[in-house]
């Protein structure tokens, strides 16, 4: 994070030594952690199917990717995530905007959303299975509900806290109707919306894994489950690693550029 902030200084000439230092420290930390893990694994306190070393885990990961099962699993999971999150995003933006701008909806629907947000999204799973059966639709349903409330609340908070001054200035300059929303209310709410979207994303990811642990088609969650069934801790850890890698990549691709833009424009550090 710190390095990112430094990188965002306007037109800083290349990475300076001060910017590199945190990365050097981080690298050192992870190398030491891996060495410790490998050492403990080799010392033989536990059998390798309980605690494999990092080298074994990485080997399993590479194998899984080469065999194609990990790739297929990841594609299936990401497809569900994209569909579920896409639905949440569309619903969340509209509902958040309405709840943020219309007082009656805030008092009624808003309180419901706030209540449902307190419910961990995994709790929807039994109901989803009863309604849809244990299939694709049940999983996507859980993903949608996992992300939806965070997105609604983020959008609503941003819209509600839009300084009235911006709205006055916009009206004064001739903004009318939908343009007020698309060109003033939503952009003004962008920082809060972004944090809602991020939280929604991480909840969607969690709900997906919970659903996939129960549902027997090839997917990331299912690969975790197979690893357990086969007493193969290396596979479980390899899939966990894959999930972390995918999560970080998506964060960097989807949200980081947005966040950078918000920081640059609003001047937030």
């Amino acid at each position: 994070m710190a390095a990112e902030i430094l990188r965002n200084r306007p037109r800083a000439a290349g990475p300076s030594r001060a910017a590199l230092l945190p990365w050097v420290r981080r690298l050192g930390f992870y190398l030491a952690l891996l060495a410790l893990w490998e050492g403990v694994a080799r010392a033989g306190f536990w059998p390798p199917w309980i605690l494999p070393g990092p080298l074994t885990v990485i080997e399993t990961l590479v194998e899984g990717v080469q065999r194609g099962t990990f790739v297929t699993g990841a594609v299936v999971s990401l497809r569900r995530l994209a569909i579920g999150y896409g639905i949440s995003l569309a619903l969340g933006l509209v509902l958040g905007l309405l709840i943020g701008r219309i007082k009656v909806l805030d008092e009624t629907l808003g309180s419901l959303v706030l209540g449902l947000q307190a419910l961990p999204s995994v709790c929807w799973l039994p109901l989803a299975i009863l309604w849809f059966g244990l299939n694709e639709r049940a999983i996507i349903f859980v993903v949608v509900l996992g992300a939806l409330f965070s997105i609604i609340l983020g959008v609503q908070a941003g819209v509600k806290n839009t300084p009235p001054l911006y709205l006055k200035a916009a009206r004064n300059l001739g903004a009318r109707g939908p343009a007020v929303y698309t060109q003033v209310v939503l952009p003004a709410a962008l920082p809060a919306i972004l944090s809602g979207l991020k939280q929604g994303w991480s909840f969607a990811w969690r709900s997906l894994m919970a659903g996939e642990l129960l549902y027997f088609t090839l997917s990331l969650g299912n690969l975790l489950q197979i690893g357990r069934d086969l007493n193969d801790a290396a596979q479980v850890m390899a899939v966990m690693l894959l999930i972390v890698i995918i999560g970080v990549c998506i964060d960097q691709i989807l949200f980081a550029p947005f966040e950078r833009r918000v920081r640059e424009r609003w001047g937030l550090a």
Partner: protein
Amino acid sequence: MVDQTARESRQVVARAVAEPQAKGEGIPLRIVGVHKTFADRDRRIPALQPIDLEVGAGEFVCLLGPSGCGKSTLLSIVAGLEPASGGSVWAGEREVRGTDTDRVLLFQEAALFPWLDVQHNVEFGLRQAGMPRAERAAVARRFIDLVHLGGFERSYVHQLSGGMRQRVALARALAINPAVLLMDEPFGALDALTRDRLQAELEAIWAATRKTILFVTHNVREAVALGDRVLVFSPRPGRIVREFRIRLPRPRRLEDHALVDQAAEILAVLHAAAEMEGGRHGR
């Protein structure tokens, strides 16, 4: 230095107003019996006593008074951002009902949009009016140059100083070519030097465009330096206690003795009004 800035401004203004869009000449304003009372739970708080005021086309009128005397409320009502409790406002031939781009209000806080850079802030009103992209970029560029911010087109609001923000706000307002500028203590939060410069530039822009300007301030010298007329308001609930016609030649210089004397006279009236009200409330 201020003189030199003013001269430069006049040259830039002359160039800018030579273009067709820059011609929004002032229209008269007529304020008839406008008053305002705020309802606060069970109390009714009068903010503005009935005001009658005629402002000529292209006239520069300063509303002077202590904070909270309702002069900003009056400006909001003229802008159409706030309804009056009674009375009517006429802009040219039309009665004011809501905002319209013939009257633009400038706020003390500049009210620029932080998600847009300078260029797009200035383009905002033009975009609402449906001007094509290329054309509005050119118009915005011209007004950015007019307020001496060439080179800052891509800057964001947080990168600008208070004075620069007010310049952008002025460019944004002028770009849509209103007939009336309503200015609510636009220079109130600026340091003295920046304020002097911006006053000189505003005077030059006004002289070249002949827009009608209603300018709210609590700074007596500012009012005298800019206004054709200065209207002194009483403390809340505000009413106009005295009217001064300022006949000093333009461009005015803040250190001019005649200006300083005039300011002293108005300041005395302002104090007397404040004391009178204080006495009434202190019973």
